[in-house]
């Protein structure tokens, strides 16, 4: 059986990549995708924990399902907002969305 640590390492690498993406990307869409990556890392975690730690209970699995669902909703919502910005400002670059500051 694959040791649980492998899953955890995978997930943390994914999570870190996601964080890097959020910090490094300037396109709102890419940032959103990076967040999705982080959410997937979370899902892996939950599933791994569920399987390895408490196989009888389904909590972790259910959690993963909800994470996926919410992630989907999030994408929908975020894209809608990004579109509004794009419509009004003709850009999805978050650096240019700095009208409000200080």
């Amino acid at each position, binding site marked *: 059986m694959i040791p649980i640590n492998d899953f955890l390492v995978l997930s943390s690498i994914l999570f870190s990549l996601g*964080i890097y993406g*959020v*910090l*490094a*990307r*300037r396109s709102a869409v890419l*940032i959103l995708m990076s967040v999705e990556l982080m959410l997937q890392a979370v899902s892996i975690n939950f599933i791994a924990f569920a399987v390895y730690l408490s196989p009888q209970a389904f909590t972790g699995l259910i959690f993963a399902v909800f994470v996926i669902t919410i992630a989907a909703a999030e994408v929908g919502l975020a894209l809608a907002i990004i579109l509004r910005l794009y419509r009004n400002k003709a850009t999805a670059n*978050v*650096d240019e*969305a*700095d*009208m*409000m*500051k*200080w």
Partner: protein
Amino acid sequence: MGAQEAYLIPALPAAAFVILLLFGKYLPRGGDFVAIAAIAGSFLLLFPVLVDFLDKANGTDFVPVEKSWEWVQFDNFEIRLGFFVDQITIVMLAVVSFVALLVQVYSVAYMRGDPKYGWYFTCMSLFAASMLTLVLADNLLLLYAAWEGVGFCSFLLIGFWWERRSAAEAAKKAFITTRIGDVGFLIGILLLWREAGTFDITEIFDFAARGGFNNADIGGLGLSGNAYLTIAVLFLFAGAVGKSGQFPLHVWLPDAMEGPTPVSALIHAATMVVAGVYMVARMFPLFVLADDIALDVVTALGLITVLMSATMGLVETDIKRVIAYSTLNSLGLMFVALGSGSVTAAMLYLLVHGFFKALLFLASGSVIHATEKQDIRELGGLAAKMPVTAAVFGIGTLAMIGVIPLSGFWAKDEVLHALDQHRNVVLYILALISVFITALYMTRLFIRTFLFEARDRVGWGHAHDAESLMTLPLVLLAALTAVGGLVVFGFVGEALGFPGGFGEFVFFAEPEKFDFAWGVAIFSTALAVGGIVAGWYFWSEKAEPARRAGEALQPVYETLYNRYYIDDAYQWVINRVVLTLGALVAWFDRNIVNDTAVDGSAGLGLFAGFELKFLETGKLPNYALAIVAGVIGLAVLLLVLRL
């Protein structure tokens, strides 16, 4: 009715003051009669008190009368206020009430027509009440209160014509200068209280006699022996220096002549200014118990004042100011007497001084009233126009000079005698020199005012003796000036119902029989006569010799004319040091404490806010970075601190 009711003496003028203050406007003549009736009542009340006091005495063994009421009560702190009657008190009461009565009568005419006539009598009543309280006070607190009270009245009356800039300034100067002395006075009182635990004068004496002040210390200074007591009485004496115009706080008295002349006669000659002498005499047991330095200081300052004021009197031209210098001169002598250990001499001088100095002032007041001039360079020849005034003024002058048998002679003789006996010869000689100078300038004053031809014909032309209301007090005072000194003789005293001469009535420790010191008398009389003759030489006719002397001794003349530059020095200190210090502190307060420290720290907050707000860059990745940094920070710290 006896000595137990002595509190009524100040109560009457106090009541008059309240009545005049509240209803003076509605009374006819501004209510002057109320004031005069009150002070007359006080004067009359003195007699039953005196009789009672003498009755209770057994020979020269007098029993002070004391009565007090509780005023402030703490757990172990109590202040009782009351009165205390002994021989010194009675002498003072006599001087104060009598002179006050005469001056007020005189004022009725002198002040007539003044727009603030009623206010004048109101102030006079308040003054009489305060002064009589001061005299009767059995306790230092009440004494201090009354002391400030008379100072305040002096302020009001010097500044009576406050529309004149000079009067307003003089009033201010008088109050502040005496107030500086009072700082010391109050400190002295508190020092005494600190150890004795009471303000009651007799109890403090008892305490001191028991040695209670021995080895007392002030906050770790390491005082021992009588040092504490000495410091305390020197502080007390500071009050006397201020009030009685001794060097170096004498500067206010000449300026105080801005007030109406009767005020000068009463307050700045006969009564208030001698309060310092009275206080020292009253507290004399402490001065004696203290180290010798205390009385040395009293003598020294007294003598300096005597010489200074006498020399300044030589060149002064304002008639009232000359008399003011003579007052300083006399006060100095009184302190010399006290410093030499003779309460008798001091009180005798105080008594007769009250008469002859009031006389001189009131007479000069008549001159001013008649001529509306008070510069002796513009006077002269008034003897022809104002014979009565000239006569009484002459008597006063001679008394001041100390010509036998006028009262001044006996008093001055006692002082010199005491000095001769208790002090070294240098001081004695200095005092004798002062006698000569006194004769010199008093002669000058009289000659330039009353004799030879008038330099200002206009004022001279309409001058005449004043009406009887003003002349009568003059004559009464002149009579007393002439014969008052005879109380030194035992038979005179006995005739008046006293156990003996003045020395057997007013004394410290032991009654003193009058002892005529021929040596002293001859010296002083010779010097006095010499002074008169010299004065006649210098200032008769056109006063050419005086002018020449003045030119020959130009620097000396200048120094004297500018009052030894002391006023200038004080003014310099006030302008350059005190006000600069004030401006400096105000500047410091505004610029350092406020603008820098207070506004600065506020500005720091604003600046921090200004800098911090740029953290909010408006760029989303930065925001995310902050979140990540926060997470990492939290996680690392949590782990590090835990592990």
